[in-house]
């Protein structure tokens, strides 16, 4: 997706995130943190020229939904080169990354490490976990802005 679309999603998700209680709403707060952060990574990857920003939506690594030209309004899966990633590490990016993107991915890995234990299992939600996710998210968004500024991306 285009950088501007990722940024629009980040903005809306971030506004919701601010309305949620990191403890009382942990599961959704965490999930929004993760998907907003992933949109930020995708925006930065496109701006840095690492991944393709064409309008196709990932279903699994290497498979994207594209408009079905024979059936207007419908979508079909297709095999394609790397566009948006589903999660940091899914799929792994083989191309060398600029240092700021390496740091963004490292921040997202801090968040991702808490996904299954805290949302799909019963790890106790502590202040340390909330702070670690919150710090990593803030770092990720700050780095995204720096990547966009450095790339001179005006599509936002």
């Amino acid at each position, binding site marked *: *997706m285009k950088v501007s*679309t990722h940024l629009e*999603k980040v903005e*809306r*998700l971030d506004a*919701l995130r601010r*309305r*949620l209680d990191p403890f*009382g*709403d*942990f*599961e*959704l*707060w965490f*999930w*929004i943190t993760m*998907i907003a952060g992933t949109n930020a990574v995708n925006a930065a990857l496109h701006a840095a020229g690492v991944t393709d920003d064409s*309008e*196709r*939506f*990932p*279903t*699994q690594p290497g498979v994207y*939904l594209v408009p079905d030209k024979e059936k207007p309004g419908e*979508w079909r899966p297709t095999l394609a080169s790397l566009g*948006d990633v*589903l999660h940091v590490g899914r799929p792994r990016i083989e191309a060398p990354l600029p240092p700021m993107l390496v740091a963004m991915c490292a921040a997202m890995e801090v968040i991702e490490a808490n996904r*299954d234990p805290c*949302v*799909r*299992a*019963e790890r106790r939600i502590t202040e340390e976990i909330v702070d670690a996710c919150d710090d990593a998210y803030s770092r990720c968004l700050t780095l995204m802005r720096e990547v966009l500024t450095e790339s001179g991306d005006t599509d936002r």
Partner: protein
Amino acid sequence: MSPEAHRRKAERIERSLAKCARKDYEAVIEAAMLAGSHWFNMALHVFGLTAEDDDVVHTYFLTGNQSQRYGILAGDMLAALDAIEQLRPLYVRGNAPGGEAAGRRAFELLARIRESARAAKPAV
């Protein structure tokens, strides 16, 4: 996780879901997927189809044999959860037109899953 722990997680996520507006359709779809997964796992454990340490993460990770077996007792829930999963690439990861309607659809599908899961009784 135990059935009771799945129920608690699902209900927590649904309470958070109430804070979402229509324009937050990505969050609504994701919350429906997460809460729906917990209800579905609760039902599978109650039916006796899966052990408490054997949770389904996403419907698309199920093998054909698992889908067939779970579908016998939990076919309606499986179909509804799978329908929620189908919304995610287009409206959460993508920006296909109709996001708010997709969010409402996910909410309705979650209600179906919840109702069926709450009615689950030991069967196997």
